[in-house]
């Protein structure tokens, strides 16, 4: 069996590469070891509208939980900054005719399935319950071994796309330094609940009292549901995320809003608040999405960066595959150069901003800086709106 590219992982990054490369006429196999994409949910699901549109994804009721119109950043000490685009740009954002939402909270199960559907409709072949277990060199190509319903399939390909998430095994196979420090990986937990009112804003709660090293959130989830969650950095606290979330719900300045909350789902994940990987490619290998640590180091948001990184990878491959160039590390380096130019350099700047905040030893000043940075980040004048 032979494909031009094999993509390991059918999340937003992998399916974007699959859709775009298949649409350009190349043979694409995308594999995922799960039986239900997007599950278990490890993400709050917030994504901007322009992130979808600029990567060729039409907002669709199939995956949208609720439209979003802005942000409210709170610090639990009386500090509040509301950035409601319905008020700031009423002709552009809102529910009235001709206006649009700023973004959406999406259902990751439906969203990931939708993206894979689009990839398959573009011509990609997809296997679920298919775990990539290793690869070997075959001249300028590679043979990847995939365990598919207990049967080992050997597939020859030019390039393996590692879109297998933060825990990327593909990156490890290729000897790429993927290890993340404990103090740069947020331990996140969220509850989907009924009985908590929201009003179309993503509410972010900064401050070490709520979430040491990270932040808390209350997001609208559609149908009257909400998600209440937080991410902490383990070395900054001596209790786990579950304890912090319990305190946030029962004993914080927002507790009065949560008193009628009825639990519907428990979700969690490790979210990198880290720099992108310094090297995101190897011979015959390209990493995208969380696997390349294409995650916003301030917000932890990863859907936009995954879609955009997938687009950059696809555009590179569409040029590289028919070029006759071999699949050496040297020839794949251009992918990372393109990504740095499009987004990566901005992400590195954001990482420096984040690092400076948490280098501050005085917790009061650190909390103040994070609150200000979050407020500035989401403002209409932000330098970083694109990521």
């Amino acid at each position, binding site marked *: 069996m032979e494909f031009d590219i094999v993509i390991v992982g059918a999340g937003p990054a992998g399916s974007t590469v699959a859709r775009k490369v298949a649409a350009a006429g190349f043979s694409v196999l995308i594999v995922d070891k799960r039986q239900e994409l997007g599950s278990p949910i490890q993400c709050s699901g917030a994504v901007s509208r322009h992130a979808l549109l600029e990567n060729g994804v039409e907002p669709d009721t199939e995956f949208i939980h609720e439209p979003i119109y802005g942000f409210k950043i709170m610090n639990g000490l009386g500090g509040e900054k509301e950035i409601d685009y319905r008020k700031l740009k009423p002709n552009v954002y809102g529910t009235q005719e001709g206006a649009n939402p700023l973004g959406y909270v999406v259902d990751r199960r439906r969203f990931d399935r939708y993206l894979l559907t689009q990839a398959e409709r573009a011509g990609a072949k997809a296997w679920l319950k298919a775990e990539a277990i290793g690869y070997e060199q075959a001249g300028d190509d590679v043979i990847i071994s995939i365990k598919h319903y207990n049967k080992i399939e050997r597939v020859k390909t030019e390039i393996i796309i590692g879109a297998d*998430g933060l825990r990327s095994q593909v990156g490890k196979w290729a000897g790429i330094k993927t290890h993340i420090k*404990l103090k740069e990986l947020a331990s*996140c*937990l969220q509850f989907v609940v009924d009985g908590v009112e929201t009003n179309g804003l993503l509410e972010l709660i900064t401050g070490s009292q709520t979430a040491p090293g990270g932040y808390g959130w209350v997001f609208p989830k559609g149908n009257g549901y909400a998600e209440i969650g937080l991410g902490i950095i*383990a070395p900054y606290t001596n209790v786990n995320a579950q304890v912090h979330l319990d305190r946030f719900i029962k004993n914080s300045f927002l507790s009065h809003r949560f008193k009628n909350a009825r639990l519907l789902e428990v979700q969690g994940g*490790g979210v990198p608040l880290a720099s992108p990987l310094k090297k995101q490619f190897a011979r015959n290998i390209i990493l995208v999405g969380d696997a390349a640590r294409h995650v916003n180091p301030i917000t932890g948001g990863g859907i936009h960066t995954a879609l955009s990184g997938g687009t950059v990878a696809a555009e590179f491959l569409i040029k590289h595959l028919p070029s006759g160039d071999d699949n050496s590390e040297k020839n794949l380096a251009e992918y990372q150069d393109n990504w740095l130019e499009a987004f990566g350099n901005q992400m590195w700047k954001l990482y420096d901003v984040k690092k400076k905040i948490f280098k501050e030893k005085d917790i009061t000043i650190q909390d103040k800086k994070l609150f200000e940075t979050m407020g500035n980040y989401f403002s209409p004048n932000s330098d970083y709106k694109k990521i």
Partner: protein
Amino acid sequence: MKKPVIFDIGWNACINCGACIAVCPQPAGFVSDFDTIAVNTPCEIACMKCEDICPVSTISHLVVAAQENPHK
């Protein structure tokens, strides 16, 4: 020198978040069938970062005596 450990996961509380694998410095393959860190293989590094990151503190460990380690 840290002694090897074998991890135990309280599956009842595990939310399959994958944070333990994400932070694990082991080479590829140190994972269980349930997408957590491996539970049937001694961990020679014993850094305990997986225990530290777990949002619900459901990972624990037992120190493995040298003679019990099948890889020694």
